[in-house]
């Protein structure tokens, strides 16, 4: 029997390619440059399975890729999937939950401390030769330990962040989530709060919700005006959870003290985005999950999910909307 044709839409390490190659016929791609939607569109015709990072899986692609049975996302977020179109075409989508939680939670804490203690700004200050006297009262930052942190979205990553804040930094942790998590409350001594209360009391607000119709622009003008003047916003979920224009306005008007952002409404971020000019904002190019080990684990998961489905085994890590 002929092996099913598959497409690997992002470079993965050799062992993973070998594993997939044993079970499938891999469509050759040029991995020396970044692979685009168009590259994938061009080669999708006879493909039955695809591993992708954040490539949009939309009606146009599905109409051309008539043989597709499964698309496996390397990451945990899957807002690149047009779920209705995929359901209609009978294509399963899988993702990679549970693998990157610790790595993302580490990065969230890094963004939080870097913003509060002005680490990026002061590194530039020193490297740019501006450090000229020992007196440094003008370089003071905000305390992290012992402050109040509010986490919006208490999933697996939220739990890991809560653990670091509560056990490690003795922060008073509150959270807001669609459903209450009583066990997590007990384990880490954290408390549930209504959204507005959380916003108005927290020194740090951390966004960890998935992007859905309901969370789109969850943080806007009204929400920023509720936050404390010396509070810091951390976003490592998805860009559009924040109304970026409202955030920029809040930062300009000093209604909040700063922000640590790993995600943006448009990625890569545009060169004329005012956020690029702000010293009190720490920016990173969507790398919260970015360590080699975590990326390899994610890619392994995506490859295995795809191969299982193509070989007719019980599917795993199918996105919740397509289960059952």
């Amino acid at each position, binding site marked *: 029997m002929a092996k099913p044709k598959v497409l690997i839409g992002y470079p993965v390490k050799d062992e993973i390619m070998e594993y997939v190659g044993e079970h499938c016929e891999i469509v050759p791609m040029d991995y020396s440059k970044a692979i*685009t939607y168009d590259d994938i569109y061009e080669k999708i015709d006879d493909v039955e399975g695809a591993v992708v990072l954040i490539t949009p899986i939309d009606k146009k692609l599905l109409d051309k890729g008539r043989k597709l049975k499964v698309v496996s996302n390397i990451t945990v977020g899957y807002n690149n999937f047009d779920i209705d179109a995929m359901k209609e075409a009978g294509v399963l989508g899988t993702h990679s939950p549970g693998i990157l939680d610790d790595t993302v939670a580490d990065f969230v804490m890094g963004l939080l*401390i870097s913003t509060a203690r*002005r680490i*990026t700004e002061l590194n530039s200050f020193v490297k740019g030769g501006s*450090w000229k006297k020992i007196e440094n009262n003008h370089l003071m930052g905000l305390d992290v330990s012992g402050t109040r942190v509010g986490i919006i979205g208490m999933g697996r990553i939220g739990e890991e962040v809560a653990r670091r804040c509560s056990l490690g930094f003795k922060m008073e942790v509150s959270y807001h989530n669609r459903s209450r998590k009583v066990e997590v409350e007990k384990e880490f001594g954290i408390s549930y709060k209504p959204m507005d209360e959380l916003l108005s009391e927290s020194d740090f607000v951390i966004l960890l919700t998935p992007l859905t119709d309901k969370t789109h622009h969850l943080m806007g003008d009204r929400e920023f005006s509720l936050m404390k003047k010396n509070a810091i916003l951390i976003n490592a979920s998805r860009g559009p959870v924040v109304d970026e224009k409202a955030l920029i306005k809040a930062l300009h008007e000093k209604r909040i003290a700063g922000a640590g952002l790993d995600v943006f409404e448009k990625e890569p971020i545009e060169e004329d985005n005012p956020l690029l000019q702000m010293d009190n904002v720490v920016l990173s*190019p969507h790398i919260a999950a970015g360590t080699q080990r975590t990326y390899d684990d994610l890619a392994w998961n995506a490859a295995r999910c795809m191969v299982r489905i193509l070989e007719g085994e019980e599917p795993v890590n199918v996105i919740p909307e397509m289960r059952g």
Partner: protein
Amino acid sequence: MKRPKIFIANEIPKSVEEYIGQHCDYIMWDFSKRKTFQGILDHIGDVDGILEVGMKIDKNLLKHAPKLKVVSNISVGYNNYNIEDMKARGVLGTNTPGVLDNTVADLIMGLIISTGRRIVEADADTKAGNWKKGEMDKFFGKDIHHSTLGIIGMGRIGEALAKRANGFDMDIIYYNRTRKEDAEKRLGARYMEMDQVLKNADFLVVMTPLTEQTHHLIGEGELKKMKDDAFLINASRGPVVDEGALIEALQKGWIAGAGLDVYEKEPIDKNNPLLQMKNVVTLPHIGSATKKTRDEMGVVAARALVEVLEKGDSPYIVPELRKS
């Protein structure tokens, strides 16, 4: 009774100044002017106490302050005290242990994450407009969670750091002159000989006070024992690390990077090669620099000064100068 006279050499909060004013007469340095040795000598001819940060207190200075009884450091480190010279003159010295532990430990954790996960580098690159699609691996970093934290010098700050590291499930190993078995139990830290700590640590944090024994404690031999993907973090005192050897280690790839808040010479020289290195985070000695902590340190330092002048004793006198 005649009120004692104080020279205030560094900026302190208004409330602390008022407290001192209730107990002493005082003169303060004009902070719009650059501090010079001669300028300081002009102020100390008839003072009983000095409140300062990092001012070298040796016989050279003491001979110009015949009435001096006490010097109060607004810092926990007191390597600026020449203990022998102060003993010979019967001048007491105080410091501010305890109040800054959490603030310093927060920053060290920030240095660990921002070097390991390359936050500073990623922020600078993103702000320069260099983020391009499909380059996810450009800023792949080292995982913090489940990595090995090596602490050399397990004092209060070392313990505060270990507590934070527990939140990240780090494996904690340490070396100290004396074993701290209660800390081992509380924090799950394991004692090892210095060589073993050097060889096993993914993140090596130097946390010893600066003494003759710890001067250049980390030199070429020590850096060569470290793993080539390990990071050195120093937020204690610059001369604990042989900076020439560190620069060589970074240039030759003996270690992966460094996070530094302190240097052999401060402010750092403009032509120091560390300033050119992307894998080095350089901060301007801000370990304790948050408003809350600086205010508390000012309060403790002022109280210690007044205690010595009014009662002849204070719990904040440094161990080497205590009356047995």
